[in-house]
């Protein structure tokens, strides 16, 4: 899959940063091969030279050969991901705010600093979404570089695992799934691939959201239209999801009555929902009371009566019988083509006949109005454009806060204010860390919704790089972030870790389906295409519809898609969500029906999967991959250490080493695979410390 990573435009960052912080960005110390050093801000690589900004404001170029190897490596990294002096300043600011609050609440300081071995396992899991290999662990453990932690964080942020891991998070949040049974026959594959691409290219989050909200067309012409099409037939539920995901407010109960706890009225609900009130998603269905005008609705972006005319033509010229089961694929194809997003001036949101709340009257038209923050500016824009502009405007801090708070929860295992999809303004005021919440909200805006840069800040904090808190904090109690809290691996982290144990780090770049087949089949401009053109697309479609089980398809030649029936892929590359009773499902992968529904409950089937599952058989069975991989090592001590590196990414304690060595003395290689099995089946394996 594409690995292109957007280079950060530094000048923009510098300007915004300078406006935000009174003090200038910190310079880094650079050392030359002859032992001299200078303090300067790194600006980038130009040919064989490095560009710097000096303390007095002047800019200089220095040949790269003048620098020691560690600095040359740092320059390559910083050139790719951007200067880290801002990152460090922000991280320090977060630490200062948290430390002050800790003291105020009776804690002396953060938890003890995280040792190197726990650090490497945690950042691999948190950033790349899987445990490190033995080689990756050793490379870090043996490195003597002073900046090895920053370097590893950057390396992982630039690795393909980063986007894969983040995809799993957004797939749960945005309920991404490609099962046509759930979606009225809409093919979501191109939309899912669009999401993967946005994360791989690190598109700013506000842009992703704007593009989705304002998308028009079908998923073949514009994959981002999948966002609007996701809840076709459930327009008000779609709006409730919008509230939870984009605004952090669960307003679903205001659909039927005034909100019992918050200030929202039922009228607020329909007025805000009216931003999607003229959004048409489909064709060929009859209109009813929830729309003004009534009558049948034309397919947008198509000549009048296109659907009927095409069906008539196919019946006359191609012998299609719309009622015959043998021609059902034709119906599915026309149906899939018909899911199409457009604005339709004939449509309005109408308050329901049984409207019982305040802020409106039954059967009247609701005009678009925002229920939180300032008003949306409509002038010359479509409703959805106005909504997108309002949502992502710099003066709407709630949007930035929602995503910053979510990203914080990803790093620390607990949000600054929560639950992340439902909190009131009052709860923001009562948050245990109001200053930190304000600061990270502004940081999200300062980095222009660049999630990679934002996460880079969090991972560089002392708070994050602390031992996980040992006592489980109560849900209802305030928590002061003396360190992250202990978490079980997400289902996808457990799956991807099994994949890397079985297949090594190459698994990170192995591709699954990319949605391109459906993108191509459905990419038709109906205003231009002749009936024969559309028919040619149908033939492609038809050829693809063989029994595929859980396989997924990608494009190969025109008529025959490539069918990928490989389950040895990272979770993000598999069918979304993956099949029932799979290890992903067993460990709580979200079914993508409700937002944020991944779960962390344990179960007997989970431990059975670890005890006897396919991966365990390969790793610790009669022909054990772990034993095979350690053949190159001499002596029981090294082999026992090797098993600990592979399974738990840490050194064994002296007692553990003794236990392992005695196992090897008694049982030889069997002792090694027994030890590997035992480590996989101790609770430590499943938890992110």
């Amino acid at each position: 899959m594409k690995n292109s990573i957007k280079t950060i435009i530094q000048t923009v960052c510098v300007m915004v940063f300078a406006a935000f912080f009174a003090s200038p960005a910190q310079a880094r110390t650079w050392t030359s091969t002859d032992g001299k050093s200078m303090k300067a801000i790194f600006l980038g690589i130009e040919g064989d030279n490095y560009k710097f900004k000096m303390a007095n404001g002047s800019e200089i170029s220095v040949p790269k050969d003048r620098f020691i190897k560690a600095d040359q490596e740092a320059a390559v990294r910083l050139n790719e991901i951007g200067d880290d002096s801002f990152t460090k300043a922000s991280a320090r600011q977060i630490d200062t705010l948290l430390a002050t609050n800790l003291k105020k609440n009776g804690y002396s300081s953060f938890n003890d600093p995280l040792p190197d071995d726990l650090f490497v396992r945690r950042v691999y899991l948190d950033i790349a979404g899987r445990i490190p290999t033995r080689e990756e662990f050793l490379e870090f453990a043996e490195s003597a570089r002073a900046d090895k932690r920053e370097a590893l964080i950057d390396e992982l942020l630039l690795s393909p695992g980063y986007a894969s891991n983040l995809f799993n998070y957004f797939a749960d949040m945005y309920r991404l799934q490609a099962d046509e049974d759930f979606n009225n026959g809409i093919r979501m594959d191109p939309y899912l691939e669009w999401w993967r691409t946005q994360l791989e290219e690190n598109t700013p989050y506000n842009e992703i959201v704007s593009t989705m909200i304002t998308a028009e067309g079908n998923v073949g012409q514009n994959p981002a239209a999948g966002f609007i099409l996701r809840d076709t037939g459930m327009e008000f539920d779609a709006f409730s999801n919008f509230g939870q995901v984009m605004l952090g407010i669960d307003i679903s109960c205001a659909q039927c009555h005034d909100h019992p706890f918050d200030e929202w009225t039922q009228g607020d609900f329909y007025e805000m929902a009216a931003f999607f009130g003229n959004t048409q998603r489909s064709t060929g269905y009859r209109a009813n009371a929830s729309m003004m005008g009534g009558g049948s609705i034309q397919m947008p972006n198509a000549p009048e009566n296109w659907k009927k005319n095409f069906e008539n033509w196919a019946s006359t010229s191609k012998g299609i019988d719309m009622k015959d089961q043998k021609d059902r694929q034709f119906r599915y194809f026309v149906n899939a083509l018909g899911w199409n997003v457009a604005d339709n001036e004939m449509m309005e949101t109408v308050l329901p006949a049984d409207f019982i709340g305040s802020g409106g009257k039954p059967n009247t038209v609701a005009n678009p109005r925002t229920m939180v923050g300032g008003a949306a500016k409509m002038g010359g824009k479509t409703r959805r454009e106005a909504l997108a502009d309002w949502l992502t405007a710099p003066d709407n801090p709630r949007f930035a806060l929602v995503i910053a708070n979510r990203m914080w929860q990803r790093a620390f295992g607990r949000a600054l204010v929560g639950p992340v999809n439902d909190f009131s303004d009052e709860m923001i005021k009562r948050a245990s860390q109001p200053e930190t919440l304000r600061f990270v909200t502004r940081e999200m805006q300062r980095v222009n919704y660049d999630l990679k840069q934002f996460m880079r800040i969090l991972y560089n904090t002392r708070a994050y790089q602390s031992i996980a808190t040992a006592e489980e904090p109560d849900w209802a109690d305030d928590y002061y972030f003396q360190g992250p809290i202990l978490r079980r691996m997400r289902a996808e982290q457990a799956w991807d870790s099994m994949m890397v144990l079985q297949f090594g780090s190459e698994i990170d770049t192995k591709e699954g389906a990319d949605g391109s087949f459906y993108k191509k089949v459905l990419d038709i401009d109906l205003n231009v295409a002749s009936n024969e053109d559309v028919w040619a697309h149908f033939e492609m479609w038809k050829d693809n519809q063989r029994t595929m089980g859980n396989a997924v398809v990608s494009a190969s030649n025109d008529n025959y898609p490539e069918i990928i029936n490989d389950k040895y892929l990272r979770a993000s590359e598999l069918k979304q969500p993956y099949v029932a009773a799979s290890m992903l499902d067993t460990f709580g992968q979200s079914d993508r029906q409700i937002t944020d529904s991944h779960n962390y409950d344990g179960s007997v089937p989970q431990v059975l999967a670890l005890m006897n599952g396919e991966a365990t058989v390969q790793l610790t069975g009669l022909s054990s991959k772990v034993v095979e991989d350690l053949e190159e090592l001499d002596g029981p001590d090294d082999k026992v250490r090797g098993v600990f590196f592979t399974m738990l990414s840490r050194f064994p304690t002296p007692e553990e080493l003794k236990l392992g060595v005695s196992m090897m003395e008694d049982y030889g290689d069997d002792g090694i695979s027994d030890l590997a099995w035992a480590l996989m089946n101790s609770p430590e394996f499943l938890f992110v410390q």
Partner: protein
Amino acid sequence: MTNIAELAGKDPLSRRYFMEMSAKLTLGVSTAVPFLPRNFQAQDGAKAKNLIYIYMAGGMTHLDTFDPKKNSGVMGSTEMIDTNVDNIKFGMHLEKLSKHADKLAVINSMTSTNGAHEQGMYIMRTGYNKRATIVHPTVGPWAETLLGKRGEILPDSVVVGRSTSNAGFMDPSLSPLPIADPSAGVPNTQLIVEGERFDRRMEMAQKLGQQFTSKFKYMGPDSYVEYYNQANKLLKSDALSAFDISNESNASDYGTGRLGQGCLLARKLVENGVRVVEVIAGGWDMHVDVDGSTATRVPELDVALSTLLTDLESRGLLESTMVAVGTEFGRTPDINMNSGRDHYPAAYSCVLAGGGIKGGTKYGETDGSGKKVKSDHMKPEDFLATIGHGMGLNLEETIYSPTQRPFTFADKGKPATKLFG
């Protein structure tokens, strides 16, 4: 570490339980005071020793199933059919079940305020509104707590059609065993190494895990220690055959889908001593094309439920097994622009049978278009309280969460006692 004697002093414990606790403590787990199931007797007169709770996820359309109307304006293409009980009518796709109406109590007066799936399903399965500060247990853990543990090896409760489960604020050892695919039973039960070598592996895993579980005082790692104990016991018994439905002679009578096979598995588990089996099957969220969707979904329910009732009866289990059919809400009487029906919590239908339920009963009524409940309003907590009443659970008994919050089964819901014969 908590002293064993101190723990024992908290409650009059059976010797067996005391031994189990000692075992847990020597493995370095459960340092917090655990949640203790107690041996209460079932309430007098209760006949339902077992429960099979069939849950129709997505919101079962009441008009097209158990509450059809003469008013054709709300019926789409569903027609009303007679049953073997005069005043009970069904939608036409419940043809087989119409011959078993004399076994059923049809509740047409369900009403709720939860219009969202997750919240609606939550209260229908736990009797409590979903809260952000605590997780409430489902019927299985409640029954085990109030009535005592029944089986040594098999779990007391199983949930079919879910890949995960929990016991809410109760001890993880009470979690229903989740079976994602009824035809697959419990996956991954083939040991990699056998006998002494397997024991060696387990013992080593426990030893190596101790340092970690004692360092972190979290429910999560502790619960995994418990699941390993349960899995170990299960693997060493022949009880696993109770989960295998591949050789059941009447398997095809139930229907080949998840719902039918789930009902078959539920029957077999109950027969083998499991107390509570939930069978969860989806596909009821019919926002688009309700006619097409009911034509596939309702017959599945028709076949599965009719066969289950016949099967339980012929095995002499219907008298001691309550069968419940629940859902989170009904669907709008007005058909929407996509020929579908939307969420409708104001009025919906559920069904009870067996375990002391008086068959041929119609309970409650909606108006002529299925929009409003006219009599005998039954809220989700009342429905659960009715189930609890049938099982002899003491609805007054207060159980405290680890944070000392008081809870009773079904949140003070009122049981419909007149449904019992």
